[in-house]
């Protein structure tokens, strides 16, 4: 059986070759298809590519260059050239003959810009021969091209080239062969076997090979043909709404249309006689009942087509079967595909839940990172700092500025993190010294004064850096994502933020519980007078604590800038959420902040899952939930007990 398929596939490939064997000289082909080569379109370029491929190795070189966008027209004589970049200039080769034309400056050549659809076709056309290319990279690319656009002919070619010295590529070929078998093999048994060989595989490409088999068409038929592969018969009213079902019949010309208000109105307008329609004066027709009367009168006079009545509609609907019919004729194949898909459902559901949890965890860690500085300044010290968001922004801009001076992304990140801490620590200390120290007894005024600082800092950032977003690029090793499978994956930058959040949680616990500073901070916040009499300087401690909280905000800024954007409004995007996180969690307790961040992160993702079309709604309902939550638990998830300000 296989061999027949193979022969067929080979024939399919060879036929166009032999047909054009006589004209197989490349220059002729180029001359013939010149327009198409210069301005190719995916829909028409296929024969051109095939013709060029048929001319032999020079044709292949031309295709390769075309796909890589290295094919151009020399401006001096309009000759089609392959232009390989060589320093600042281009090295030209005649595309038709392969003759070396020497170097030329860039502006001497108009490079052709085939779009990606055309490039896909070119690489698919070359994939067959590249499958046994000695270069493993070319083979991998060819397999990639095949997985995007395979067909029956290529299945044959692939089966010929199954042996591969590279074990990964061999496995990949094996898998691709089975995927293509599911879609393109002519033997149903082979297809079903291939489906079953995947087990409960959840990969996208497996499902992508099954789903097309299960595409259906909705039809209305009086009798069900015996050979139809019916997926489902629809009951009118429950599976398909009455109106929709009848509309299908009307569209197919199987039943007369019902009377719509627009049609009624238009018909009435055509039959105005002496200011009357069917005996009803026109002025009275601003009323549905009057219009119906007029229409019935017209029907009675035989002037208009009677519209379908309710009984006729019912009768018509009863007469027809409404079916979903598979495009695939073989019922065994569709049944097997259905079974295979059903086998993946539970696993996919679980994995989607896992992926959503990862997203939620990542969002929670971002909120936690943004809020941890606030947990110190607001949670521990009770100082409400509306400029906290602007400290985050300052950290992000510090990262951007550092990248302007240090081009190596890894080193610049290593420099930026402590520098951001230093900058915002200094800013925090300055703010504490100059403003907040005078307002410790007036929290509402602290709120307003720090808000003034926040406006000023935001505008300053705009004046210095402009309103446009600035690039802050993560180092190469943070690019990409940790991919467990096609469904569950998380980008490395998010993992890094998660790790950073954990580090700061540890750092916070260490400082507060294991160091002298932490002890003094707790002492000062619990009873400044008593602490002072023990020889602790509350002024100094307040200053250091506030600086620490601000410094952490700066580092959070670098992290947030790396994964999102750096603008002057970066801080205000996070400030309300950060306060929410701290308040929901319970002021004065780092575990509370953690719980708050987790609650908000998971809640938001949960709402997004219910309503994937509208992310804005998710944010709205999340805030609404928090407002209501605070009404019932004003002290947050983990309420501080008694006078203890810090508990960990």
């Amino acid at each position, binding site marked *: 059986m296989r061999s027949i398929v193979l022969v067929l596939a080979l024939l399919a490939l060879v036929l166009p070759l032999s047909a054009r064997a006589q004209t197989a000289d490349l220059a002729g082909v180029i001359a013939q298809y010149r327009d198409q080569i210069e301005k190719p379109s995916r829909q028409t370029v296929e024969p051109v590519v095939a013709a060029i491929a048929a001319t032999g190795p020079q044709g292949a070189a031309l295709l390769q260059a075309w796909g890589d966008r290295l094919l151009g027209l020399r401006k001096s004589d309009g000759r089609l050239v392959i232009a390989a970049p060589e320093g600042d200039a281009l090295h030209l080769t005649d595309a038709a003959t392969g003759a070396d034309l020497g170097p030329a400056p860039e502006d001497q050549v108009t490079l052709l810009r085939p779009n990606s659809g055309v490039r896909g076709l070119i690489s698919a056309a070359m994939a067959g021969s590249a499958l046994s290319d000695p270069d493993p990279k070319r083979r991998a690319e060819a397999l990639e091209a095949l997985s995007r656009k395979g067909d029956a002919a290529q299945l044959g070619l692939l089966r010929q080239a199954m042996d591969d010295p590279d074990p990964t590529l061999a496995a990949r070929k094996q898998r691709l062969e089975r995927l293509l078998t599911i879609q393109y093999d002519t033997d149903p048994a082979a297809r079903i076997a291939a489906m079953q060989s995947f087990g409960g595989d959840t990969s996208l490409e497996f499902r992508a090979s099954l789903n097309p088999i299960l595409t259906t068409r909705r039809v209305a038929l009086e009798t069900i043909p015996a050979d139809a592969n019916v997926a489902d018969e629809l009951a009118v009213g429950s599976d398909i709404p009455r109106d929709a079902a009848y509309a299908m019949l009307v569209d197919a010309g199987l039943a007369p249309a019902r009377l719509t*208000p627009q049609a009624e109105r238009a018909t009435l307008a055509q039959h105005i006689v002496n200011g009357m329609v069917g005996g009803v004066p026109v002025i009275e027709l601003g009323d549905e009942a009057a219009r119906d009367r007029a229409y019935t009168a017209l029907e009675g006079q035989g002037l208009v087509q009677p519209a379908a009545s309710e009984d006729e509609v019912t009768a018509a609907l009863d007469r027809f079967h409404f079916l979903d019919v598979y495009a695939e004729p073989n019922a065994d194949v569709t049944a097997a595909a259905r079974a295979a898909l059903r086998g993946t459902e539970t696993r996919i559901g679980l994995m989607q839940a896992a992926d959503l949890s990862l997203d939620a965890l990542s969002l929670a860690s971002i909120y936690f990172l943004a809020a941890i500085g606030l947990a110190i300044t607001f949670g521990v010290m009770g100082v409400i700092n509306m400029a906290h968001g602007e400290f985050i922004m300052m950290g992000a801009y510090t990262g951007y500025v550092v990248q302007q001076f240090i081009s190596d992304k890894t080193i610049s990140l290593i420099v930026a993190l402590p520098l951001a801490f230093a900058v915002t620590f200094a800013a925090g200390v300055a703010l504490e010294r100059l403003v907040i120290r005078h307002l410790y007894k007036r929290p509402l*005024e602290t709120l307003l004064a720090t808000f003034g600082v926040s406006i000023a800092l935001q*505008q300053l950032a705009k004046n210095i850096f402009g309103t446009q977003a600035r690039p802050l690029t993560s180092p190469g090793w943070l690019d990409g994502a940790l991919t467990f499978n096609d469904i569950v994956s998380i980008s490395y930058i998010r993992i890094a933020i998660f790790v950073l959040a954990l580090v700061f949680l540890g750092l916070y616990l260490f400082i507060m519980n294991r160091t002298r500073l932490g002890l003094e901070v707790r002492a000062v916040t619990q009873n400044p007078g008593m602490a002072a009499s023990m020889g602790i300087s509350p002024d100094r401690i307040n200053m250091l604590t506030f600086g620490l909280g601000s410094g952490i905000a700066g580092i959070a800024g670098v992290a947030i800038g790396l994964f999102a954007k750096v603008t002057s409004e970066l801080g205000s995007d996070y400030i309300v959420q950060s306060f929410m996180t701290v308040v929901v969690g319970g002021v004065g307790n780092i575990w509370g902040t953690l719980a708050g961040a987790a609650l908000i992160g998971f809640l938001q993702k949960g709402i997004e899952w219910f309503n994937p079309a509208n992310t804005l709604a998710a944010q709205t309902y999340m805030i609404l939930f928090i407002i209501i939550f605070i009404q019932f638990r004003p002290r947050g998830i983990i309420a501080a007990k008694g006078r203890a300000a810090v508990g960990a």
Partner: protein
Amino acid sequence: MRKPLVLRHPSILVFLAVLAVFTVGVTILSTGYGTGVISTSMVKTLGKTLCLALAAVAMDLVWGYAGILSLGQMAFFALGGYMIGMWLMVARTETIVTGSLANLPIPPTAAEINQAVATQIFGVVGSDQFPAIWFLSGSLIGQLALVVLVPGLLALVFGWLAFRSRVNGVYLSILTQAMTLALALYLFQNDSGLRGNNGLSGLQNIPGLDAVPQESLSIWFFWASAVALGLGYLLVSWVASGKFGSVTRAIRDDEARVRFLGYSVESYKLVVFTLAAVITGIAGALYYPQAGIINPAELAPIASIYLAVWVAIGGRGRLYGAVIGAIVVSMLSSWFTGGRAPDVNLGFYTIKWVDWWQVLLGLSFVLVTLFAPKGISGIFDALAHLRPPRRGGTPLGPDMGALQEREAVE
């Protein structure tokens, strides 16, 4: 027999007199009814500023007198605007639609008119149905009632929930901020039924008054705003002056002590909060027909914070302070950002006020908070030889959340 309110507080009389003189003066100088020295756009700006001043008076009532720093006042302001805007849009569109449908051979049915109006209003958000919340939009009386009811009800429910669970101080401030943020995000959605980000527009064209030019309309609204400000000022002064006012200020200074004295603190706060919301809603309903457009950006949290800033700069606990703050700061803002202020050339750097005004505003705000908690009205106090009692800096009560000594003057 107690003296009438205005005699006990001569500042009210002075304020009303100044307001009257100002209103008449602007009218005489206006394009619509006077010499034309003041352009119509300037009249509109002044009218809008009076509305903002009314909102500031309400803000002063909740913050300066009751000690609730509400950072969500502009939500009520915008709701008032939305409520009146709904009627303005529907009534105006109805005139247009009936006009065009009347040309048809067959007269339109009520359903057809309704459908056409809905398509015109909601076509921009891809809908042709009236959302349920527009059920009263055909009636001016109905929507005017909603101007009062919707902000009032929101304040009542929100306040009841918050005060009942004893959320106060900065927590309450953050919560009110979250409320206005949630409302803004909700209105930003296209499906909210209030035309999403587009908001309601063309509100300056009053249905049925097509023949009246904007020059005259602007003066009418200016007068309406002035009258509203005058009445609102009287009402708030009356509320703040009697026994009710005393209890309110006592709550501000020491909530727990008032509760122990047997007063229902929550009810007092709730009344003040709701009343202020209603007044703010009315101010908004007068503001937006002058502005011409309302969209959810109007109730972004920042707008409410600015309102607090104005009151703080003008002087809390002084109603005229709130008015002065709102007028001075908002007019200064529009002067500086309007590009009218001349650039200052320092030789090495040219200060463009468009860029630096916000910095200046932010910093001056810090300075006022630190060094002049009484704001601009402190100048009037000094003129009137009002001085706070010398208490050697000891606070009036143990509640650190409330404002102390300096505010207990009145």
